[in-house]
């Protein structure tokens, strides 16, 4: 062993000498001149630690070396040479050697923010050298510690061009994230997440909800697997120049998440605990039992069809209140980090336990992370990133079904409030409404339940070799294994379960992902020329394995899904599936900087994907960007107040392949089977209308930007204008249904997103003790479907009895709400001869757009869309000594939202369903001839008219998203040296919302598609109060 090592060392030395010799040969001055050996040590200013890995280069040559683990270097140079010392994040130093042979140097950390290092695809660059549009967030910018329930929340409202909306208040619930609008109609519009250099697989979740269980269109957030406290920085890559290196997955932007690493120095232990209390921020104001009785009976008297509400004892029941509770969150975070010159490590453990604001819902999360970097020798570095998590999700039945297929919250909202008991005192069974087909809300909440356990581990190992100071080679192997099991139980206490003695379903899914990646990094200075290049090749493979089992007919349902076999044999069902996709890619980028003024970036990726047909598997996504650092020009030197000014422009093509596998392939799948006699016979069905010519969707994006700093960078800002034109849209094109198929995925149509993004931050007061920092951002967005390639306008958005709520048509924003214009209410003295419809006073008055005296689907108009015209965020941080107060306001304007709860109030599908109070308390009557609300006597006439200008509401809002007050104990003053730091804080989140939207929250969306928002019994949004402590040892 020892011998082997020595041999290796020897051969290494030999090789190195040979290599250096070659380099020396390349240098024209090398011949026949004597050299001087210079040695020394490189240290840092801040902690006086030696700095390994710094480059030492003889100016104007390729001759150089890097410092060893102790910061030492030795270099043979020409007499009279100048040495350039360089380390990322530090101010470079140039030292003429003169007569010295020993030169020790202290590098100063570059504190100017523009010198900050940001993570980009397959590398890092100095922020000042960025040519693309990249936003970077460091934990300091985020309300760190305990306040972030998700990764997305760290970004929400803080980055121009990124629109983040929580679709509901469900623990760990789905969050809509869109960078610069929507680029695709059918394919995904989610950004690519890259965690520590490894693309993160968002599609590893269990789909399907289990038999008898109400389907929820929004699965929980896959990023729950990451502990927000482990995150060191998040970079958002927005323009083509930044994202083209991710090729076919870059068109929706890329979110780069980098986790924390240990710092050299001693052991550092941090522990944080936070306790949060959650309360529902906005509840449904429903008719109470008395109002319900009197109004419904009035309606019958006025001619409505329905069963009268009989007298009842007591005050009835406010059903939703029975599902509500105060939510709690307990969160523990422990991290241990440190390092010496050769090795650094970061280990963290976290436990997160959330009880949601609806009973029987919650989230438990345990995370473990290990980040390890070690230098085996001066040229060889190994790194390990490992994240492992266990998540237990508790689901209350809450989805988008209605009537007997509904979930608990729907049932509670619409249940007859005059029912005075939850359970029948004699039979013990849940009381059912005689006049509704909805199950008892508490039966659903308590006996229709699901829980899911997800074990997920992902990470990577990389080996990096410094071939020469300017060239490194890196091999990275990564993987991701997610194994989830969902147990769904519909008990015999429920309507769905009683017939079969309970229904149990187990859904299993294992998703695996692995990646192999080899990259070469070249970084060299040639006098006025700086070149930084990366080239690489990757292979990625995704596999999914699913299986499910269902049982019912349980004689003794006590064992539920733990013993599915205890059900009836004849009612057992199994299913399974397996899928795979692959990506194989070449990637590259060159950054060229001339005189530190003129910058050029060329980048691109060649992607091959298994998702496309044989003729179109491979595609190339190139981009180019230029930038000009005006502040480096002589004519701007010394011109106050501009300290930094950079112009950027980029152009490129990026792709999208986020669609299901095998759309190009004709095949057959197991069908439902056909029943003959009393037997089901197996069947097969055509899987799809295949399109063998299917290819990539590509987005051509142009970006022009300015980065500036004023008053010595006390104020910093960035302005971008972008235009992204997606073409060859991956579109589920409606087919003539006589083909036997409704849709076929084709490359058809064009869409455009354009907008302006502004980011501004600065210190209003920058005193020694008192600081006031303001960070603001502003975004505009304009989305338009510009071409449908000859396909007629089509409709999307079916939810229950609402069909085709939105239209996709040329010249309109994607998924524009499409329905009827309500002009008011028919009044008694109106001229009814203008309409052939059977209108009566008190009915809604829909606008007869085409003037044919009939109201039908030809009278529909565009009522709005889900894209915010502009959004803004504003953070004010005031600090005085150890006390920090931060106030964060987030706002969005100019989007619309279909309020399905209003639809169900205006057009109840069952007369005896309860309704929202306000419209009924102020409804049209002969004594109250309002135009605000109809009489609701004949809601049936409106059916088909549910999508109209009253139910599609303005969803603009301004939200006081958080206030945080933190105090760092002055430990030195107090004479405490046991703790390195001790911070306490309180945070209030989602404290107030100003909006005209009448529903519970203008961001609510129970519909699966993020661009067709429909507010329908969304899990309640919560206001959160957190008390926390962070301790450093």
């Amino acid at each position, binding site marked *: 062993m020892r011998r082997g090592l020595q041999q290796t060392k020897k051969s290494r030395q030999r090789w190195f000498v040979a290599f250096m010799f070659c380099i020396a040969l390349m240098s024209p001055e090398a011949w026949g001149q004597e050299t001087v050996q210079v040695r020394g040590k490189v240290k840092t200013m801040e902690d006086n630690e030696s700095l390994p890995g710094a480059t030492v280069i003889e100016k104007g040559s390729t001759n150089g070396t890097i410092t060893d683990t102790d910061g030492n270097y030795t270099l043979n140079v020409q007499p009279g040479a100048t040495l350039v010392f360089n380390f990322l994040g530090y101010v470079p130093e140039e030292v003429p050697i003169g007569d010295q042979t020993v030169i020790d140097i202290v590098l100063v950390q570059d504190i100017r923010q523009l010198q900050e290092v940001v993570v980009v695809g397959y590398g890092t660059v100095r922020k000042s050298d960025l040519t693309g549009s990249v936003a970077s967030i460091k934990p300091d910018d985020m309300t760190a510690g305990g306040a972030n329930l998700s990764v997305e929340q760290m970004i929400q409202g803080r980055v121009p061009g990124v629109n983040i909306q929580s679709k509901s208040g469900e623990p760990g619930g789905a969050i809509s994230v869109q960078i610069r609008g929507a680029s695709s109609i059918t394919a995904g519009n989610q950004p690519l997440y890259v965690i520590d250099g490894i693309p993160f697989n968002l599609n590893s979740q269990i789909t399907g909800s289990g038999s008898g269980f109400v389907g929820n269109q929004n699965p929980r957030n896959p990023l729950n697997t990451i502990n927000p406290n482990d995150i060191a920085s998040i970079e958002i890559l927005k323009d083509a120049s930044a994202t083209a290196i991710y090729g076919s997955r870059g068109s929706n932007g890329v979110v780069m998440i980098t986790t924390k690493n240990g710092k050299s120095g001693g052991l550092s232990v941090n522990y944080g605990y936070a306790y949060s209390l959650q309360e529902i921020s906005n509840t449904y104001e429903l008719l109470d039992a008395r109002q319900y009785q009197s109004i419904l009976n009035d309606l019958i008297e006025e001619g409505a069809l329905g*069963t009268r509400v009989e007298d009842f004892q007591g005050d009835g029941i406010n059903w939703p209140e029975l599902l509500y509770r105060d939510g709690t969150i307990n969160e523990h975070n422990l991290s241990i980090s440190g390092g010496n010159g050769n090795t650094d490590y970061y280990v963290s453990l976290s436990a997160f336990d959330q009880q949601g604001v609806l009973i029987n819902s919650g989230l438990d999360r345990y995370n473990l992370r290990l980040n390890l970097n070690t230098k085996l020798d001066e*040229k*060889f570095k190994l790194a390990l990133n490992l994240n492992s998590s266990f998540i237990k999700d508790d689901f209350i039945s809450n989805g988008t079904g*209605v009537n*007997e297929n509904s979930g608990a919250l729907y049932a509670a909202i619409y249940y007859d409030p005059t029912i005075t008991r939850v359970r029948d005192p004699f039979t013990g069974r849940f009381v059912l409404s*005689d*006049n*509704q*087909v909805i199950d008892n809300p508490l039966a659903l909440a308590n006996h229709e339940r699901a829980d899911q356990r997800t074990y997920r581990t992902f990470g990577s190992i990389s080996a990096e*070799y410094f071939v020469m100071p300017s060239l490194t080679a890196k091999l990275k192997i990564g993987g991701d294994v997610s194994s989830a099991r969902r147990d769904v139980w519909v008990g015999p206490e429920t*309507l*769905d379960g*009683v*017939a079969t003695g309970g229904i149990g379903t187990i859904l299993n899914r294992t998703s695996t992902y692995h990646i*192999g990646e*080899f990259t070469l990094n070249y970084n060299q200075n040639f006098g006025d020329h700086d070149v930084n290049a990366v080239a690489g090749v990757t*292979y990625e493979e995704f596999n999914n394995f699913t299986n499910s089992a269902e049982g019912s007919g349980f004689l003794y349902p006590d064992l539920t899904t733990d013993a599915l076999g205890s059900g009836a044999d004849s009612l057992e069902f199994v299913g399974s*599936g397996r899928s*795979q*996709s*692959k990506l*194989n890619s*070449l990637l590259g980028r060159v950054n060229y900087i001339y005189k530190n003024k003129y910058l050029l970036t060329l980048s691109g990726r060649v992607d*091959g*994907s298994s998702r496309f047909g044989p003729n179109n*598997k491979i595609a190339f996504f190139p981009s180019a960007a230029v930038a000009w650092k005006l502040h480096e020009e002589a004519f701007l030197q010394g011109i106050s107040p501009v300290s930094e000014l950079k112009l950027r422009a980029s152009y490129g093509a990026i792709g999208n392949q986020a669609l299901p*596998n*095998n759309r190009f392939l004709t*095949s*057959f*799948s197991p*069908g*439902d*089977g*056909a*029943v*003959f*006699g*009393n*037997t089901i016979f197996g*069947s*097969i*069905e055509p*899987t799809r209308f295949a399109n063998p010519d299917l290819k990539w969707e590509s987005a051509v994006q142009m970006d022009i930007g300015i980065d500036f700093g004023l008053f010595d960078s006390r104020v910093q800002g960035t302005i971008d204008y972008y235009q992204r034109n997606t073409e060859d849209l991956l579109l589920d094109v*409606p*087919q*003539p249904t*006589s*083909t*036997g198929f409704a849709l076929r995925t084709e490359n058809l149509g064009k869409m455009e997103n354009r907008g302006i993004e502004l980011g501004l931050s600065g210190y209003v007061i920058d005193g020694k003790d008192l600081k006031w920092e303001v960070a603001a951002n502003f975004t505009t967005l304009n989305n338009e479907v510009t071409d449908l390639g000859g*396909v*007629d306008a*089509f409709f999307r958005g079916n939810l229950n*009895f609402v069909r085709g709520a939105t239209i996709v048509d040329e010249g309109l924003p994607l998924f524009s709400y499409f329905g009827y214009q309500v002009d008011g209410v028919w009044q008694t003295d109106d001229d009814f001869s203008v309409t052939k419809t059977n209108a009566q006073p008190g009915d809604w008055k829909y606008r007869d757009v085409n003037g044919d005296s009939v109201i039908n*689907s030809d009278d529909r108009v565009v009522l709005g869309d889900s894209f915010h015209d502009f959004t803004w965020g504003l953070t004010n941080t005031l600090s005085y000594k150890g006390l920090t107060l931060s106030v964060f306001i987030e706002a969005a304007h100019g989007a619309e939202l279909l309020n399905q709860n209003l639809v169900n109030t205006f*057009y109840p*599908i069952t007369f005896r369903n309860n309704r929202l109070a306000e419209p009924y308390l102020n409804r049209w009557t002969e004594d109250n001839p309002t135009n605000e609300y109809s009489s609701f006597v004949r809601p049936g006439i*409106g*059916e*088909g008219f549910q999508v109209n200008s009253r139910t599609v509401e303005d969803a603009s809002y301004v939200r006081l998203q958080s206030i945080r007050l933190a105090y760092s104990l002055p430990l030195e003053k107090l004479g405490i040296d046991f703790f390195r730091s001790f911070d306490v804080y309180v945070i209030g989140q989602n404290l107030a919302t100003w909006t005209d939207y009448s529903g519970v929250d203008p961001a609510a969306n129970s519909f699966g598609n993020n661009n067709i928002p429909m507010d329908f019994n969304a899990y309640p949004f919560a206001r959160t109060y957190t008390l926390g402590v962070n301790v450093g040892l």
Partner: protein
Amino acid sequence: MFKNIRILTIVLLTTICWGCEDLLDAPPFDEFAPENVLVNQEGIEALLFNAYHIANRHQSLHTWTLPMESSTDIMVVSEGGVAGLNSPFATFTWTADTQWLNEWWSRLYQVIRDANVVIENIGNFEGDETVRAVVLAEARFLRASAYADLYNLFGPVVLRTSSEEPTNEARITEEEMRAFIETELALAVENLPHPASLPTDYVYGRATKGSALGYLAKHYLNTRQWEAAAQTAQDIIDLGYYALEPVFRQAFLVSNEGNNEMLFVWTSINQQGYHTTLPNGVASPDFLSAPNIPELVRDPEVMAAWATNWRVTDWIIDAMEAEDGRQAPAVDEYIDITNSVRRYSDQRPDNRRYMKLFDPGGQGNFHGVDIPVIRYADILLTRAEALNALGQSIDEAKQLVIQVRERAGLTDHSSIQNAAAGDELRDLILLERAKEFIHEGKRREDLVRHDLFIANATSRGVTVDGPHRNRFPIPAEEANNNNLIVQDEGY
């Protein structure tokens, strides 16, 4: 360090093989390739069964029955979300966008799609020649009956007989449409098994000679080819297999499924996906039981009764004489959920319920009652109607009607016997059909073929904007995406 480089290089070359196209093959593991599955009897039958499954409307029966009957004078749908979806049919305001049109259209064309592939691949079917001929005949039957339904609803449509046709295709002519349906059904009749001698593994619900002849007879009738209709009906009678169930109500009971009255049914069982929900819509939300339907006691905790209230009109029930067995399923008096006795007729007009199709063994909302598509009573009345239209064998025609009436328990047939041939007898036959086929979705076509559909609506006070309403427009999903489609005038 050379060693490291070597390792890196080897790893690079072995793990990452850029440019190898095979590397990007990711076969769909859980799907069948056509060349693997359509190669034998099992695979071809499995696809045929899919066509049967799609043709079977059990799960969404209301999207068929409601529009076919509420657009006439025998049904009212007033509440619930379904009433909204149905209202264009009740008010004669349907457009090409109206939702259920495409449900019918695309479902029938999916049947045609699968049948075409079966027929194209029948050559791969190895084994028993007679089995192969039957499978081919079944595919022909499913395809031709789907075209017959399409023709009945939409008039001449796009004829697709292969899976390789262009997506854009024009409608064919009336003559071509009829010729195709008639030729293909006749071909199917030849090779489908006789209902009395089904092959051993040929389970009830698959097509027989009777099914294809039944479809053919109904097609001739609806297209007023009276002579052919009368003859085809006679061919069915001559099969010697079919007969009327002695008691009307018995013909539909789950316990009596597979009886000799049924030429073709949509088989259902009480399991999700193979069930029908018709009873959920028929029962009022407060319904518990009815004295005249002793088999059915609704457990409100199990079987939902929707808000929608699918009601039968008073005139048709009142038109039934006291002893008419077809009154038996009509529920007026019922026990409500509070165990009180109530009457539907006390609550509002046209409020009674017709409980002919129900399943005492229903599991929750999953009712397993077979839905008759063509039954023998229809065939007898078809021949009667055709003979009357031809002005031939009027006595035989009357006798056929009386046969149906007698089965219903009626004894006095003087109205029929005294009726004059021609319009008077025709109207009586149509009335007989209206009573006989409640919830079987036949009233619309019965009225249409005698040009009474629109007059019938107008007499109820419905505004009808023109004779184009005798047919439905080509659904928008087709018309908008197939640029060779010429929409019917008026739509």
